[in-house]
């Protein structure tokens, strides 16, 4: 058993946790009313220049329907000097669309501004907003003041990059875990119409020998389902070395699963056994299941038995391991 590679599955959580930490920050919010052709200044904003994320300033103008604006934005430092100046042209428009006999109302707008930047040092800054134009669709100036919502976050991160990183890491962690847990050797795949399998194979060394057994039983000439509520089947495993000496005899009662579909009934027996063989050696294996399973009616007869034998298996979880007698 080797558990540490399972921790690789936690790696994609790292970028998502960083994103969550960023979203948990409480933003600074203000509302600023600006009259046409006048300026309004915000309350002081604290902009940080730390290692975790960067400041994000978001402005959203509450434009009336069918209007357009020209908004001047100045970022001032604590001394009142302009450190950044820009103009935002915004609009909000609505109307009726009709196409193919159908119609409805549409509304579109572009009245928001996102400003991602990093100040040279931590400090208080101000935003001065000037409503240079507020017009209706005919180009007539409006006199009503404009409400602008301001939100500032100091620990904004690159969310799309974090999502991409989580996805790529998930993919690569899956490949890494598969390269560790599925790096085994497939020795045999057998499917027999018999209740026993005999084979000899060179097995052993690092990892475990894994035997995956699957069998199917059917009633030969009856469509009746199972009579007994719980059926069991005994599995017997015998292992012998190159000289024919018996090194292992193992018996286990296995639960039998009943299935049915479209009036057809059958039983399945599934089991996985792990065997530790310290040194590679020629090992004879004999696996036996009952030829029939009785449940009061016509007995169930074996249809087929399938065995997948692998060597060098590492398990991510604890498993019961059989060992050879010396």
């Amino acid at each position: 058993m080797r558990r540490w590679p399972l921790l690789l599955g936690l790696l994609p959580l790292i970028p998502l946790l960083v994103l969550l930490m960023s979203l948990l920050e409480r933003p600074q919010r203000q509302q600023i009313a600006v009259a046409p052709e006048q300026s309004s200044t915000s309350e002081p904003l604290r902009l940080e220049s730390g290692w975790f994320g960067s400041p994000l300033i978001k402005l959203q103008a509450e434009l009336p329907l069918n209007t357009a604006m020209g908004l001047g934005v100045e970022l001032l430092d604590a001394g009142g000097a302009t450190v950044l100046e820009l103009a935002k042209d915004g609009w909000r428009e609505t109307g009726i669309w009709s196409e193919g006999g159908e119609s409805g109302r549409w509304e579109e707008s572009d009245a928001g501004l996102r400003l991602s930047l990093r100040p040279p040092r931590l400090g208080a800054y101000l935003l001065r907003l000037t409503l240079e134009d507020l017009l209706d669709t005919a180009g007539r100036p409006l006199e009503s003041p404009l409400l602008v919502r301001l939100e500032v976050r100091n620990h904004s991160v690159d969310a799309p990059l974090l999502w991409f990183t989580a996805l790529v890491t998930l993919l690569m962690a899956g490949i890494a875990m598969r390269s560790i847990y599925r790096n085994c050797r497939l020795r045999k795949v057998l499917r027999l119409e018999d209740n026993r399998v005999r084979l000899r194979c060179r097995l052993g060394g690092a990892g475990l020998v894994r035997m995956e057994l699957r069998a199917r039983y059917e009633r030969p000439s009856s469509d009746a389902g199972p009579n007994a509520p719980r059926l069991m089947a005994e599995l017997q495993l015998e292992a012998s070395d190159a000289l024919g000496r018996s090194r292992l005899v193992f018996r286990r009662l296995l639960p039998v699963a009943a299935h049915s579909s479209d009036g057809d009934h059958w039983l399945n027996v599934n089991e996985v056994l792990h065997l530790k063989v310290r040194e590679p050696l020629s090992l004879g294996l004999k696996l036996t299941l009952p030829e029939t399973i009785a449940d009061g009616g016509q007995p169930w007869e074996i249809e087929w038995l399938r065995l997948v034998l692998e060597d060098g298996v590492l398990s991510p979880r604890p498993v019961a391991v059989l060992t050879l007698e010396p």
Partner: protein
Amino acid sequence: MASERTLILVLTLSAVTVGTATAVSRPFLFQLGQEGAPPGSSGVSYRGSYRGGRWVPSRGRSDWSRFQGRGPGTAK
């Protein structure tokens, strides 16, 4: 096979480290005082740029093209 596994592990750890660190530190973000102006976005025009660490306003206002709506042709 062991060397391939090591390579996959190194690549996995590198991907999570570089991606997360870049998303947090944002090394290509505009810093106040840096030469030039921040990259523009929809409807935004900068009225100046940084030269020698100082914000230098540009002369005159940009030509504002009034109503910018795209109209019902694109709305569904």
